[in-house]
């Protein structure tokens, strides 16, 4: 983003809209701190600049990752589905896609920078390195995954390590038996991460209506009764199991 200095009348109307607090009043015009700006576009879309002084600049790599991961309308070109947003269909279409289709596996989604603080990829790398020793499979449609250039070590593309984004999700599948140790590994680097992050666990529900990861989560000290959740209601068709049978 940039503020056209010839147009800006210093009304400061855009200042409170910035979630990164990086639009600063100046003597004659407002200024964007480009080091902190994540290119989310909210100033352009919502602040109704009376003189249209807010402009989207053409972004090239590595800065272009900021917009892709921060602007809800930003598109990711590095994955097959080229979708908008930061994550994937994950649990939302799990009844159809079968991303998690057995009771002995779970998915973990660790969103760096959320809620509202922002993150640099160097912080994300602390997480990917912490979980690298486990037998995990990264979600191929997640836009973070292609930037993890060495899945065995968790190394992230060096070119983007210092880029700041609103948030990005490290998303992978694992054996449910490894879940407790994975959460411990993430916990072990928590104080080294210079931002906030959210952690989520996705699992299937068994025949008796019990989520397969519930006991592991509770036994590891997490309170799930007072926390937010998302539940897939199983109404999508064709169900994953039927699609697989049909393919055979």
């Amino acid at each position, binding site marked *: 983003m940039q503020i056209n200095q010839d147009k800006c009348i210093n009304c400061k109307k855009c200042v409170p809209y910035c979630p990164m607090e990086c639009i600063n009043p100046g003597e004659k015009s407002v200024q964007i701190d480009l080091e902190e700006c994540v290119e989310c576009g*909210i100033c352009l879309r919502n602040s109704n600049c009376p003189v249209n002084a807010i402009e989207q600049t053409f972004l090239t790599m590595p800065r272009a990752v900021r917009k892709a991961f921060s602007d809800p309308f930003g598109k990711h070109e590095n994955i097959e589905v080229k*979708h908008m947003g930061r994550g994937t269909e994950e649990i939302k279409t799990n009844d159809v896609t079968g991303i998690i289709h057995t009771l002995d596996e779970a998915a973990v989604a660790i969103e760096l920078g959320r809620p509202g603080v922002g993150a640099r990829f160097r912080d994300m790398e602390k997480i990917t390195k912490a979980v690298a020793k486990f037998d995990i499979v990264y979600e191929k449609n997640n836009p973070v995954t292609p930037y993890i250039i060495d899945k065995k070590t968790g190394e992230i593309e060096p070119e983007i390590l210092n880029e700041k984004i609103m*948030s990005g999700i490290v998303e992978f599948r694992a054996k449910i038996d490894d879940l407790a140790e994975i959460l411990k590994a993430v916990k072990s680097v928590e104080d080294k991460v210079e931002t*906030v992050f959210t952690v*989520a666990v996705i699992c299937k529900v068994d025949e008796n209506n019990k989520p397969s990861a519930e006991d592991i989560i509770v036994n590891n000290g997490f309170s799930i009764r007072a926390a937010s959740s*998302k*539940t897939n209601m199983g109404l999508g068709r064709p169900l994953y199991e039927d699609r697989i049978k049909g393919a055979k």
Partner: protein
Amino acid sequence: MTHTLHRVANLEDFKEDYVILVMPAKGINNDENIAEKLKKFLGIFERHNPVNLGGIGIGHLYDSKAEQIIDNVYSELPMVHGVFSNREDLVAALKDIKDEDMGISIIVSGLVDSVDCCAKEAGLKRHSVNYSLGIWGDKARLPDEKYLEITSMCGHAMISVNLIKKMINDVKKGIKTIEQAAAELAKPCVCGIFNAEKAQKILEELI
């Protein structure tokens, strides 16, 4: 993405905040009829007193009328949402969705046990669950909890703490009513998942 998952709230407030997400599986069931189906889902939401409804690029109730939002649905739209402030409306919407049987994945955000009860009431059985294990890391960088309850209602983090502060000032100065201030905070959330009724209550507490 997990944009409705990590809403911050106390137990009582969670009971007034449920989001239904409708998402086609790309390459599997987002066929040529998908736009009509998504319109139908939005129509169902509209019948059951939603606090908000919409989807990315089609508008939401704080910048458009429901009719316009439904007209704006396009075939590549990734998902649509409806936000409800009580269990009765949620269950009624879920029953209608079940009866219509359109074969598109339905997800509900809220407290896990509460959503399970609503699912049972609507005659549905859970397929899978996504648990939030909360916020980790350098939590000293977070704003006060009440502000977080508002900002976390937009998973894309488009609502700034400073905008909340400005709205509080505008209300105190008589420039805006609390209702107008809550509606202004809903605008940056382009997916239409922001619960402005809940925001209004929080603003009242903050003021």
